[in-house]
């Protein structure tokens, strides 16, 4: 009984649009034979999605802001947060008896498909907790840092296993920032909950795949294990956050902000990027655990989270071909709108886009240029609620898909008029995937040896380091 309550409480603490939360939910449901509809937060409904997207512009913007408010946890609750509750929540998403492998570490949508192929659960290093903050101004990073610092410090103090990153990005997360402060909690120790899970639920000798993303960002320490990060991996280069120019001024003018540039606190060091970066502090615990219980550790290192996408796409293509399927349909998913089950059922090659911004566009373009031509290309796009600097409009995405596809290239499941304020986006992507033609049964899982074989056979150079 108390377990149930604890579970509900922990779920309430987490944020539905967080990348790690979605990875865990998607895989938890996939391993139970379910899809990741509506980010596993409710029923999907194209009808409702259409209705939401048809609302007037301001109403949709308000909707995003309201979502931020609802997703945010009241400060009294945040200050009493217990890291074990969150770990407990993650492990509870996996109900299977024994898993043949486990993926652990940095967040990445591509890793969802990798883990799905292995039938492995994913344990995230980083989780997002949104603290309710209706007081600070999104464009006043120093004010926000100072206001939230005591809370960040308190969480860090109460949870010696966690590092707390207060991430503040007025470009990409603007509507959310109206009511919410992003606290990303990075696990520095495996902790008793994860250890128990691995002890009990990992098959003997099963590999542990450690996902390492070396992306860092300039940050500022606000307390022991508590940091402030201004900006995040998105459409703007890091430099532009710290020395904002004309583009930001224009953006701020557009948003009706009284500010014309950002004045973030002076950073004191580069540290793992709050959302995607991997803090190597966790590594020693994993190594110790693996050695003690006899699990091999495979380590995948990428410089950018996006770097894993081409590898996984090629792996899927190789895997489909081995099973005698054409593997000539590419499904580009963005941010958390991925669905491992439908990728496999459609026999589609998943290519994960980190977001809907310029860098993601370039990654897809480069991949499509380098690889063997796909017959069909479908691109789905996440909507974050505003035209952040660097958002790539639907036309360009569609043009890219059409140009690179041998057959049909299209944008799928996006209300083009409403994007990127498409309030129904998350309710629409799974039904859209489902609407595509072929159906295949789920294949038996890949093993780590299969992946080694794939790596031996593939000739493409990937920006990924396996060890």
């Amino acid at each position, binding site marked *: 009984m108390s377990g149930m309550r604890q579970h509900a409480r922990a779920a309430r603490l987490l944020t539905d649009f967080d990348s790690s939360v979605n990875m865990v939910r998607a895989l938890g449901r996939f391993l139970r034979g379910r899809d990741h509809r509506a980010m596993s937060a409710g029923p999907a409904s194209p009808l409702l999605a259409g209705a939401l997207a048809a609302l007037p512009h301001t109403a949709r913007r308000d909707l995003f802001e309201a979502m931020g408010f609802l997703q945010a946890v009241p400060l009294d609750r945040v200050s009493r947060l217990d890291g074990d509750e969150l770990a407990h929540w993650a492990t509870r998403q996996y109900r299977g008896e024994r898993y043949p492998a486990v993926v652990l570490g940095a967040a990445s949508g591509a890793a969802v498909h990798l883990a799905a192929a292995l039938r492995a659960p994913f344990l995230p290093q980083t989780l997002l907790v949104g603290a309710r903050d209706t007081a600070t101004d999104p464009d006043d990073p120093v*004010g926000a840092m*100072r206001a939230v*610092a005591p809370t960040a410090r308190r969480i860090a103090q109460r949870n010696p296993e966690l590092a707390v990153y207060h991430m503040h990005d007025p470009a990409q997360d603007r509507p959310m920032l109206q009511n919410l402060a992003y606290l990303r909690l990075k696990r520095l120790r495996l902790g008793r909950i994860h250890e128990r899970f691995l002890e009990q639920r990992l098959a003997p000798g099963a590999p542990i795949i450690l996902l390492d993303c070396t992306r860092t960002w300039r940050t500022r320490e606000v307390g022991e294990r508590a940091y402030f990060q201004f900006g995040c991996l998105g459409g703007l280069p890091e430099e532009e956050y710290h020395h904002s120019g004309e583009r930001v001024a224009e953006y701020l003018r557009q948003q009706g902000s009284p500010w014309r540039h950002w004045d973030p606190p002076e950073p004191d060091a580069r540290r793992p990027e709050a959302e995607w970066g991997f803090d190597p502090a966790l590594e020693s615990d994993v190594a110790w655990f693996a050695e003690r219980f006899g699990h091999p550790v495979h380590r995948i290192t990428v410089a950018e989270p996006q770097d894993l996408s081409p590898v996984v796409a090629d792996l899927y293509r190789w895997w489909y071909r081995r099973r005698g399927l054409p593997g000539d349909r590419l499904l580009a998913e963005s941010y958390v709108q991925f669905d491992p089950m439908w990728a496999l059922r459609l026999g589609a090659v998943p290519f994960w886009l980190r977001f809907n911004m310029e860098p993601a566009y370039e990654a897809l373009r480069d991949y499509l240029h380098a690889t063997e031509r796909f017959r069909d290309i479908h691109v789905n796009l996440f909507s974050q609620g505003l035209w952040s600097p660097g958002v790539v409009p639907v036309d360009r995405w569609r043009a890219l898909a059409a140009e690179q596809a041998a057959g049909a290239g299209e944008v799928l499941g996006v209300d083009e008029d409403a994007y990127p304020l498409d309030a129904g986006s998350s309710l629409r992507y799974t039904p859209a995937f489902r609407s595509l033609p072929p159906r295949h049964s789920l294949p038996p899982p890949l093993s780590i040896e299969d992946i080694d074989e794939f790596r031996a056979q593939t000739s493409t150079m990937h920006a990924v380091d396996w060890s």
Partner: protein
Amino acid sequence: MEPSPAGYFDGMRIKDRVVVVTGASSGIGRAAALALAGHDCALVLTARREGALQQVAEECTARGGQAIVVPADVTDADAVQQVARQALDRFGRIDVWINAAAVTVFGPFQDTPLQDFRRVVDVNLMGYVHGCRAALAVLREQGRGVLINVSSIVGVIAQPYTPAYGTTKFAIRALSTSLRQELWLDGARGVKVCTVLPATIDTPLFQQAANYTGREVRAMPPVYTPERVAHTIVSLVRRPRREVVVGPMGRSLVLQSKFTPGFVEKLMAFQVHRRHLSRKHPAPAGSGNLHEPAAGTGSARGGWHGGRRTALRRTATAAMLLGAAVASASRRQR
């Protein structure tokens, strides 16, 4: 003892009293000063901010009282003695001394800087001690007078996250009691010591407080007006009592804490956690007005809508009573 001269100092009269108020620049002290000025009292106003005091003095004069301004930090015993001296120089006597200078710090015990804790004790407790020493020397010599210490409901039921404030407010009650006992043993029956225990009052205390909780401090409802405390203080001058709680909620809490202390303790903790500290406005850590006085000319009210809230509560209570009366009347008719 000389017989009390007729005409200006006959027991219950409030007119023409000489009153010293500490913490007169804002909040309860200011409201009390203004209320007493309305009764033709002569006021000696003290606080750290001279500008704010000057404004209070002007308002007092406009209400028909007289006022002089003596800026002082109550933590400085000599400065407080000087306040008493100035009062005597100017008005020849002190009838009432009101200690109302208080600061507070919000923060978990371990996170509150020790110097801030100490400062709260210095102002709230030592400030009162200095006030009591300066006042009683005069009041005892006169053989008459009222010393009013403003404590708090928190002096009966402590709160979490304000250990310094709570400690001092408990201590103030002890101080008052102790002084009363000494005066009684000495037979100084004309000198009275009273403690006022206000519930949450609509004052700037909360905005000006030092805060290390990371959450904005709000006035915990129900909020009463500082004028209500001032009214109580006026009534204490007329008819001194040992301890008076201001605000019905405060009274019922005090009463309840006698019967179910454990429950009330937890209730208070919960209330503070949920309603005293904002759940959606984070706040930077800062020492507020502890070490430096707040800017501006101060005010009695803190902008917590104490007046409106009181009016609403009264209307609701009246409506409930009316409803109950109607219901019972209609039942009787049946």
